[in-house]
C-alpha cells in the first residue's frame, strides 16, 4: 500500500493535503499539454523525415547532372581547371542565412541561400575556350547547391526536433510515471493519516463523554444519598420534636384551677 516509500516527505496535515491536490492538478494539466506538444512535434518530425528521404534521392540525381556538366567543361576547356578555380576563389558569392520557424514553441532554424552580387572570382576561367560550358556548369552547380542547402535545413530541423522530442517525451513520461503516482500516493497517505486522527479524536471524545457520564452518575448518586440521608435525619428529628413538644394550645384537659 502507500507505504513510506514513493511519497513525498510531508506532514499529514490538511494544509499539505490542499497543496498536494493542487500539485496533482497542475501535473495533470502539464502532462496533457506536453503530450499534445509532443504529438505536434512528432507529426512535424515525420513530415521532415519523409522530405529528407525525397531530398536525398533528388540530390543524387542533381549531383550526377552537375558532375556531367563539369566533365563537359573539362572536355571543352581541354584541360583541368580545378587548380585555377581553387586558386582564384576569394570571396563567397553563394552564401546562406538562417531564419527561424516556430513549431509549437521550438525554434527550428532553416537555411536560406542567397547570392551576393558583384563579385565574380571566375571571370577569367574558360576565357580561352569553353566559356559557355563553364557558364552552364556554374548554373547547374548553383542549382545543385540550392538543393543541398534545402536538404541541409531539413537535416538541421531533423536533428533539433529529434533532440527536442526526446526531451519532451522524457518529461511526459516522468510526469506520468513518477510525479503523478507519487503525488497520488502522498494524497492517499495524508488522507489515511487524517482519517486515523479523526478516529482517534472520536474515540477520545467518546472516552471523555463516558467518563463524564460516569462522573455525573456518581455525583448524582452521592448527592441523592446525601439528600436521602438528610431527609431521613430531618424526619427523625421531626419525629423526636413531635414527641417532645406539647400542645401549647392545650388540647389536653388542664386541671381546673380553683381559687
Amino acid at each position, binding site marked *: 500500500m502507500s507505504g513510506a516509500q514513493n511519497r513525498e516527505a510531508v506532514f499529514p496535515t490538511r494544509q499539505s493535503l490542499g497543496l498536494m491536490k493542487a500539485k496533482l492538478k497542475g501535473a495533470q494539466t502539464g502532462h496533457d499539454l506536453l503530450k499534445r506538444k509532443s504529438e505536434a512535434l512528432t507529426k512535424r518530425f515525420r513530415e521532415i523525415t519523409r522530405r529528407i528521404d525525397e531530398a*536525398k534521392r533528388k540530390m543524387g540525381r542533381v549531383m550526377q547532372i552537375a*558532375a556531367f556538366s563539369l566533365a563537359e567543361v573539362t572536355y571543352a576547356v581541354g584541360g583541368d581547371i580545378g587548380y585555377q578555380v581553387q586558386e582564384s576563389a576569394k*570571396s*563567397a558569392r553563394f552564401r*546562406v542565412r538562417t531564419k527561424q520557424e516556430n513549431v509549437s514553441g521550438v525554434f527550428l*532554424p532553416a537555411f536560406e541561400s542567397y547570392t551576393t552580387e558583384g563579385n565574380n572570382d571566375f571571370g577569367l576561367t574558360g576565357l580561352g575556350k569553353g566559356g559557355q560550358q563553364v557558364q552552364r556548369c*556554374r548554373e547547374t*552547380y548553383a542549382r545543385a547547391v540550392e538543393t543541398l542547402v534545402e536538404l541541409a535545413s531539413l537535416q538541421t530541423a531533423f*536533428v533539433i526536433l529529434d533532440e527536442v522530442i526526446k526531451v519532451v517525451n522524457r518529461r511526459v513520461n516522468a510526469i506520468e510515471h513518477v510525479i503523478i503516482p507519487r503525488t497520488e500516493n502522498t494524497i492517499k497517505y495524508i488522507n489515511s493519516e487524517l482519517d486515523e486522527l479523526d478516529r482517534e479524536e472520536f474515540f477520545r471524545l467518546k472516552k471523555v463523554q463516558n467518563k463524564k457520564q460516569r462522573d455525573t452518575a456518581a455525583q448524582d448518586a452521592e448527592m441523592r444519598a446525601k439528600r436521602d440521608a438528610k431527609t431521613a435525619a430531618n424526619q427523625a428529628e421531626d419525629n423526636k420534636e413531635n414527641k417532645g413538644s406539647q400542645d401549647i394550645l392545650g388540647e389536653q384537659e388542664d386541671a381546673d384551677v380553683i381559687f
Partner: protein
Amino acid sequence: MAAPPSAYKDRQFLAVIGDEDSVTGLLLAGIGHVTPPPDSQKNFLVVDTKTSNEAIEEAFERFTTERKDIGILLINQHIADRIRHRVDTYTAAFPSLLEIPSKDHPYDPEKDSVLRRVRRLFGE
C-alpha cells in the same frame, strides 16, 4: 532545448571536403571563401589518394568546431567513409553535416549517418 540564436546567427558560408571534381564544381557555384590575411583560411579541402586520414580529420574538426561562420559542411560520401567514426559521432545541429555523392562514387543511402538514424527511429 533548441540551440540559441547566437549559435547560428553568423553562419553564412558553406564548407566542403571532397575530391577535386566536386570541389571544383562547388567552387564554380561560388561557395569558395578565403578569410583575409594574415591567417587566410580556405573553406574547402581537396582530398585525393595521397591525403592522409589525419589531414581529413583535422579539416573536419576545423570546419565543425573551430570556425563559427560555417553553416553547412558538405563532405563526399567516400571521404566520410574514411573518417566514418567521426561522422557518425557528430550529432550537433550546427554546422549541418551533409554527405554528398561524388562523380566516381554513386550515392549509397545505407551509409548516410542521418538516413541511418531516420531508419533506426522508424524501426526499419
